[in-house]
């Protein structure tokens, strides 16, 4: 490992400062599952390179910068199938000298890897799991969360609906655990920002084939009675991460009402329709390389790798620990096409970020909304704030 002592003065990098020929190589790993998730909408079906593509673009962007700093970045991506053991894959990466690893894995897998990774100096980036628990009781000093948590997404949505004065919500929750976790976050957001959940209903998943010929005819007749006879409400909030029912709700509810949450107005870290703040440049670069639209997971992976690139440029080092420590420090910030710098919360290592609200075609709004104040950063009105945290790092 090449170690470069930091000069106190500033992070300078004229090409003459580095001796010719010793290119510092930063190896980055990516572990994600290739699992076919059946989405209600064909348009939302993820491709097999979902996430990895974002990572690959960021490696290219880092290498363009790296040319001027004598640094180069490489990606080792492992797409895991059902029977593959993610922990074994992580250990393999560690054995090959890769210590900075992006994980797009369920929370329990991520924690197993963090546990075995400790002794091997693994430094992890959660780019896929939204569990608040990972930022709370299960937080770890060697895991930075780049993906937004459920509470951040719910808060982003709630702020907009409250700003809009659509405060009376009918909450429909799916019957699976992730749906219930999303509902928890939405309930918390309602209480936090002054919305009222007038009633809750459960949409039971009774199984069966997801896609059938002529299924449309049935949903048209089933959804209206399911949403009938509710107390007076303004927005139907659907908590359906399992993709069982939410996309069937818009325009079929008994009363003419907008839908939000898992369908209709959806909170997300990124959407292919974002063209503000120079984002169109990133969208175009991505499309040229991968001939498809950039997803939130792609952007979360892109951001994690750009964070590594940015930190490596500032500390002028390829040493993983130096880079990771710098990211957790007070000087670190990354630009990610959302109009302001993103920084890492020191209490739970969550990347602060604006939340986009999209109808699937355009960006309707971006939270935090005007008027939601905070003594330190308005981005901290989204998610778990310092005084509320249950995280004890170490």
């Amino acid at each position, binding site marked *: 490992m090449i170690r470069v002592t930091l000069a106190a003065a500033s992070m300078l990098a004229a090409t003459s400062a580095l001796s010719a020929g010793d290119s510092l190589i930063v190896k980055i790993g990516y572990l994600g599952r290739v699992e076919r998730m059946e989405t209600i909408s064909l348009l939302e079906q993820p491709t097999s390179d979902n996430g990895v593509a974002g990572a690959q673009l960021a490696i290219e962007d880092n290498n363009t910068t790296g040319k001027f700093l004598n640094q180069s970045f490489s990606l080792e991506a492992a797409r895991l199938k059902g029977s593959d053991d993610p922990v074994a894959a992580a250990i393999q990466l560690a054995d090959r000298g890769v210590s900075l690893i992006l994980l797009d894995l369920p929370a329990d897998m991520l924690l197993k890897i963090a546990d075995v990774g400790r002794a091997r100096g693994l430094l992890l980036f959660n780019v896929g799991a939204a569990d608040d628990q990972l930022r709370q009781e299960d937080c770890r000093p060697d895991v930075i969360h780049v993906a937004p948590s459920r509470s951040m997404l719910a808060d982003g949505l709630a702020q907009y609906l409250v700003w809009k004065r659509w405060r009376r919500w009918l909450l429909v929750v799916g019957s699976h655990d992730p749906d219930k976790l999303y509902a928890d976050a939405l309930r918390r957001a309602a209480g936090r920002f002054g919305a009222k959940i007038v009633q809750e209903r459960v949409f039971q998943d009774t199984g069966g084939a997801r896609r059938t010929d002529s299924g449309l005819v049935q949903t048209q007749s089933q959804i209206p009675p399911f949403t009938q006879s509710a107390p007076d409400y303004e927005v139907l909030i659907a908590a359906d991460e399992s993709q069982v029912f939410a996309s069937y709700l818009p325009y079929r509810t008994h009363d003419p009402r907008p839908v939000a949450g898992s369908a209709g107005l959806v909170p997300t870290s990124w959407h292919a329709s974002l063209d503000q703040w120079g984002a169109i440049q990133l969208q175009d670069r991505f499309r040229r390389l991968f001939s498809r639209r950039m997803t939130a997971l792609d952007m979360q992976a892109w951001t994690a790798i750009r964070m590594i690139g940015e930190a490596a440029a500032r500390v002028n080092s390829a040493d993983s620990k130096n880079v990771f420590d710098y990211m957790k420090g007070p000087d670190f910030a990354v*630009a990610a096409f959302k109009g302001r710098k993103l920084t890492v919360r020191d209490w739970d290592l969550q990347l602060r970020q604006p939340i986009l609200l999209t109808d699937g075609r355009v960006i309707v709004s971006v939270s935090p909304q005007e008027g939601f104040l905070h003594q330190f950063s308005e981005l901290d009105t989204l998610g778990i704030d310092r005084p509320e945290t249950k995280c004890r790092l170490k």
Partner: protein
Amino acid sequence: MVGPASAFTAYVSNEKDNTLSVIDTSEWQVVKTIKVGQRPRGIAYTKDQKFVLVAVGDDDTIQMIDTRTNIDIARRAQVGDVQVGVEPEGMGISPDGKILVNTSETTNMAHFVDTATRKVVASVLVDARPRFATFKEDGSELWVSSEVGGTVSIIDPAKRKVKQKIAFKIAGMRPEPIQPVGINITRDGKTGFVALGPSNHVAVVDGMTHQVTKYLLVGQRVWHMAFTPDEKYLLTTNGVSNDVSIIDVPALKVINTIQVGQQPWGITMSDR
């Protein structure tokens, strides 16, 4: 009360409208609106004042407007390229014309390009998302704005190193909207003006000490500016309020506002 100025001409690029607004500085009025290509942004007079060049980004072209007739007369072809960082934007040419500094937004660098060889001879890391680079008239300093980083880096062009950074603080305002973009320095190098984006202010900076001496409230999302040739006035483009503010430079006061097209982006001023 607006004092009379000589009749200079400013061209403002209106990013959304696909037009240029032509301002007569003796009347402080838009005297003509010219239709151009898709998404006009970067704009500059040629030195001989015969043409205004405007980058029409969505057409991937540079248009040449004949300043006598205000007609688009040509689209220039590319003659070569220089590999720089990711998302090049700002372009500042040294007073002797030998070095062109280009800033790349996502690579966060200011690249020094030798204009004779068209090679990058140095790259200086600055704070996040640099947008603009300009030299002092005497060539002694290069100022580079970092929009997301929130700072202006003062670079020694000979050593090619950052020697100082200017940070900005506006009373009662959060730091996030303070996003420096355009920079205009008086010819004597004594005063610099920095457009601070969605904070809606222009910072007045002492050119020697690099301390901020004042903040001027202009329109919304101020990005680029241009002096009248006598440096009596500085015009600013306010992209979200669709107007141009006029700053009385000696008095350091904003004295007027002119409505232009939608989402004004750049501005260039005749030298006579």
